[in-house]
């Protein structure tokens, strides 16, 4: 047990095998460019963008192909240059008919004209940083995909005194943030500085779990001499990188229920988001690629820098295919083992938030049968929020919306710790997620 800081509760999934990160943590990021990409219009939280190109159009790298819609809207950019071959609905990981633009790559990588680099993050005009972030189409690259520029929308009476870069990477299997921090350390710090300057914040903290000592060291060196930037090592424990836990551990503050980090004067950004901010400010480049960890039951697990819209099938092929007969493949998930989304097919395009593709064999994917709760209390100990998952489960099973709401189901962060630890294999987290969605839908109906 390390002496580094941590929160109360949590679990240690795959602790015996280095959180499942061993196969890829030593692998340098390599580029992979697909022959064709299918770019979703709804990659960010908020209304999907509207396609502004047509079949047959020739597009350049970084050209806007989707116009933002609404307050949470973001532009979408071409991640390759080439010809648009399709505009229409495709299957995404959670939507059978998601609007997308398909581009055939001409491999010329011709950048669009009119990129507007702002120059050094230390000297560029601070007021231009947030518009640059929006124009670059940046949303949370750690998985939440919340539009980044909206996080910087400080309301009347609010202020931000600390920006936390989330380099915890507490999810199992994933090493994309780890590699990013090793290989592009100064870019990450540049992104943090840009974010700090945008809101005139004096303190920036890069928080990293202590299972990545090399990344901690690399970031410490990169942070040397940078104004107000420090690196903090945290205990390795899931969900250390959860926004609420991270804020609690780093600043000692708790985000009040139903409030946002800005209400406790904090903004949390993923390290990948920070690097994207730096790219947008320094080079004027939008998000056209990201690092994705491809691991699990594949022949050659890897960290790949892939163009947005690359299909899972292409990534698997690039990694040598399955390490087993495809008949024995059980599950393919976008993201780590605790929160990853199961893919309905291999023809799913990678979005800005997809940090990993993990393949499980049939045996690993087998659904464990639910048995009676033995009241062991492990879920109570594991919940990072302090809920009573065992009790909440009864309320959710009984469809008792009022009871579940009174038992704070809306405070559940859907981290999966209770489901992971339950010896009776009770379906806890998915029940809470369903109940949260139901209550939210009901509230929306009431308003509208």
């Amino acid at each position, binding site marked *: 047990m390390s002496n580094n800081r941590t929160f109360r509760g949590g679990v240690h999934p795959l602790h015996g095998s280095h959180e499942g990160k061993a196969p890829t943590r030593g692998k340098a990021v390599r580029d992979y460019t697909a022959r064709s990409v299918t770019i979703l219009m709804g990659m960010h939280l908020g209304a999907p963008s509207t396609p502004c190109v047509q079949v047959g159009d020739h597009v350049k790298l970084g050209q806007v192909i989707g116009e933002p819609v609404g307050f949470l809207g973001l532009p979408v950019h071409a991640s390759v240059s080439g010809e648009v071959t399709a505009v229409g609905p495709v299957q995404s990981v959670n939507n059978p008919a998601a609007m997308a633009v398909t581009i055939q790559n001409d491999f010329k990588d011709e950048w669009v004209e009119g990129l507007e680099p702002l120059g050094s993050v230390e000297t560029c005009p601070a007021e231009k940083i947030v518009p640059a972030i929006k124009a670059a189409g940046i949303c949370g690259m750690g998985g939440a995909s919340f539009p980044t520029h909206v996080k910087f929308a400080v309301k009347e009476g609010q202020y931000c005194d600390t920006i936390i870069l989330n380099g915890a990477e507490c999810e199992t299997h994933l090493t994309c943030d780890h590699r990013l921090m090793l290989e592009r350390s100064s870019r990450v710090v540049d992104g943090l500085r840009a974010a700090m300057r945008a809101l005139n914040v004096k303190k920036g903290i890069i928080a990293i779990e202590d299972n990545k000592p090399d990344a901690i060291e690399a970031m410490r060196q990169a942070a040397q001499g940078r104004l107000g930037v420090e690196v903090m090592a945290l205990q390795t424990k899931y969900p250390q990188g959860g926004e609420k836990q991270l804020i609690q551990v780093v600043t000692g503050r*708790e985000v009040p229920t139903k409030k946002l980090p800005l209400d406790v004067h904090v903004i949390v950004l993923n390290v990948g988001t920070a690097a994207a901010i730096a790219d947008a400010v320094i080079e004027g480049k939008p998000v056209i690629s990201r690092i994705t960890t491809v691991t699990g039951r594949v022949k050659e697990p890897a960290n790949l820098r892939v163009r947005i819209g690359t299909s899972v099938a292409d990534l698997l092929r690039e990694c040598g295919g399955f390490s087993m007969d495809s008949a024995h493949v059980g*599950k393919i998930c976008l993201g780590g*083992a605790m929160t990853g989304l*199961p893919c309905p097919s291999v023809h799913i395009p990678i979005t800005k938030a997809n940090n990993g593709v993990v393949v499980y064999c049939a045996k690993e994917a087998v659904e464990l049968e639910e*048995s009676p709760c*033995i009241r062991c209390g492990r879920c109570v100990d594991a919940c990072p929020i*302090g809920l009573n998952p065992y009790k909440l489960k009864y309320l959710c099973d009984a469809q008792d919306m009022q009871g579940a709401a009174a038992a704070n189901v809306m405070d559940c962060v859907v981290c999966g710790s209770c489901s992971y*630890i339950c010896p*009776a294999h009770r379906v806890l*987290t998915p029940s809470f997620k369903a109940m949260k969605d139901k209550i939210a839908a009901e509230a929306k109906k009431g308003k509208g």
Partner: protein
Amino acid sequence: MNLHLSPAPHVHSNQSTRVLMRNVLVALIPCVVAGICLFGYSAALLMLASVLTAVVAEYIWQRATGNKVRVGDLSAVVTGLILALNLPPQAPLWLAVVGSAFAIVIVKGLFGGLGDNFINPAMAARALLLASWPRYMTVWTAPTGLNSSVDAVSAATPLLTPGSYSLGQLFLGNIPGSVGEVCKLAILLGLAYLLFTHTITWRIPAVMVASTFVFTWLFGKNPLTSVLSGGVLFAAVFMATDYVTCPMTAPGQFVYAAGIGLVIALIRCFGGYPEGVTYAILLMNIAAPLLDHVFKRRVYGYEKGAKVQNG
């Protein structure tokens, strides 16, 4: 390729109910061996009868009530074995059979099965036997060793005649008493295993023993002898820690364990029984839901003392 779409999390801790119960059984091995070595094969027969009855009763009950048969979770084996280890070595086999069936059918089954019983089945069965057949439940014999042909000599337990046994005897179990509770060394080995495998935490055993120590001392008894006599240590490790019937939060468990120690001291020092562990645990079992209600974890994002119902 048939892709599963079950939601996250996609990994699970390998501590299933069955694994936890198996851990308890492994932890009980030293007590079983010590019991047989001290009291002979009659102790082994007692355990066999109790375990068999528990498993068969569980099977029949689950079949008869149309529930899924879950004998494989090993919880009935644990109940049967713990009951046998709580009986006097010379108890007739039918006593174990009756107790075991009562524990499984009445205390556990009738209240909804595993997880829904509000008191520890083995403890409730022991209380029933003690109340119904005190003649068999309060006759103690000195350890005979494996050679059971030697006639067992009835003897007074250390609880009745404190000071007649050395601390060494109390620790190794060369004293009259229940099959499993006499050898403290064996119990401590079991405790070490349970802690090592994260089957239980230190909270309940440590606090319960400490509380017994402190309260018997306050009430004027030799605290060390008190802790090493009777079923205190065995109960602290194997029975007070029963998941189903103990509180779920750390502060609740502290109060629960301290309460057990206090009740044991009260019964032993001022009550009519020389022992008191059974009733102490049963009483605090009943208090567990209340303790769960009082001691909740504070929910993230709410002020201290804010009105949070939390389930």
